[in-house]
């Protein structure tokens, strides 16, 4: 079919409610035939391109109880329909969750960030989703809800493949739970696109917890280099419990780059991604370490 992005050609039933319970009832009923609509910045593009033709579209942005950022004693909790722009403007995120802040800032442009939600970015399950690497290094957990109840899924078990996650057709993401980070910790995010504000060719996030001149714990996650966003455990292991210096960060960056298995696609080649991943990881490690109060 010839695509015409001026209109939305497909036909479907439209459902909206401000009640979460009502939405879950519909999802139970329509299951795979339904598509959940939040900001629409991924979903409507896919529908216009003819890549998706749901029988029914369920709009969830009217559910006020899914739109919040709560700074609790044990965790930062973000409701799934919170817009990227709201996250960007949040002082706690800006001050303490640098990797998430930098990721959101790097995304698209202001209009897309006003529309797009964090739940949509994860629900879309793109290997390039910019909020995924930061949330992976923060060890975030997702609260998924259905009419049957709720379950908690660690983000590192959520993605299964490109556009695939463990989310069941009757479920939605309700909340993103980010544990409190230690006081001497720092995080960072870097991305390369074809042009600034583009979908990532490659992106990386780092979290480091410092104890004196040693790194007590380090987590590193890449996006756009595998079917899902991934952690690189070998590189992390090289830093855990070690005295940190420039040389060691360089060696860990080398190891991290060797661990990923990028592909060649229309955004970039495999060889380029491999080369550049070392460079951006090294920079991200330095930034995270320095933000954790570490010297280099």
């Amino acid at each position, binding site marked *: 079919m010839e695509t015409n*992005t001026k209109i939305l050609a497909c036909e479907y039933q439209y459902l909206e409610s401000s009640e979460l319970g009502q939405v879950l009832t519909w999802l139970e009923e329509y299951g795979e035939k339904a598509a959940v609509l939040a900001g629409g910045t991924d979903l409507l593009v896919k529908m216009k391109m003819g890549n998706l033709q749901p029988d029914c579209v369920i709009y969830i942005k009217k559910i006020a109880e899914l739109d919040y950022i709560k700074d609790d004693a044990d965790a930062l909790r973000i409701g799934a329909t919170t817009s990227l722009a709201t996250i960007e403007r949040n002082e706690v995120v800006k001050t303490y969750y640098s990797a998430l802040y930098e990721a959101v800032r790097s995304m698209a442009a202001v209009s*897309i960030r*006003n529309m797009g939600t964090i739940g949509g970015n994860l629900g879309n399950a793109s290997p390039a989703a910019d909020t995924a690497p930061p949330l992976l290094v923060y060890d975030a957990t997702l609260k998924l809800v259905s009419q049957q109840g709720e379950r908690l899924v660690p983000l590192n078990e959520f993605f299964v493949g490109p556009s695939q996650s463990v989310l069941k057709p009757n479920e939605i993401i309700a909340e993103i739970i980010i544990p409190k980070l230690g006081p001497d910790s720092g995080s960072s995010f870097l991305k390369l696109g074809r042009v600034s504000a583009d979908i990532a060719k490659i992106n990386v996030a780092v979290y480091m917890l410092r104890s004196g001149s040693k790194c007590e714990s380090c987590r590193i996650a890449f996006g756009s280099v595998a079917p899902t966003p991934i952690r690189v455990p070998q590189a992390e292991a090289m830093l855990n419990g070690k005295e940190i210096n420039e040389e060691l960060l360089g060696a860990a960056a080398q190891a991290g780059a060797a661990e990923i298995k990028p592909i060649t696609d229309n955004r970039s080649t495999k060889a380029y991604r491999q080369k550049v991943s070392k460079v951006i990881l090294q920079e991200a490690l330095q930034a995270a370490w320095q933000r954790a109060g570490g010297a280099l």
Partner: protein
Amino acid sequence: MERKWVKIKVNGKERQLYLKPNDLLLNVLRDELGLMGAKYGCGIGECGACTVLVNGRPMLSCLILAVTMDGQEITTVEGLGDYDQLHPLQQSFLDHGAIQCGFCTPGMLVTAKGLLDENPNPSEEEIRDYLRGNLCRCTGYTAIVKAVKEASKAV
């Protein structure tokens, strides 16, 4: 597909519309309400020509189902000023030659309005960053950035 009645406030006026679930906000504004300011450029969120303000924030009307706008407030470029009394941003775009073919201008103006409402005194860098999703094939952006900067002094 079942049509649905919705109420949308457009440029300060309450409108009752009987919409199909797949009507896009951009086409409703242009075809039903005759507001030809917002433009169709790409249809997939890449160009910003279709930008309008939803409750004061720039959003892309090519990627919004009009039915989801029930109860919301939309401002298009037609809502900024009128022929006798241009908005300071509009006047400044004219004064600085920030318009050539004019295709991107409505999107640029409403995005710039969103910026000044949020940040009345933006730096050049902040202007460039805020407008980064609005593409212009003609002006090379310099005049646009200058026009927004000057307008911020007048607003």
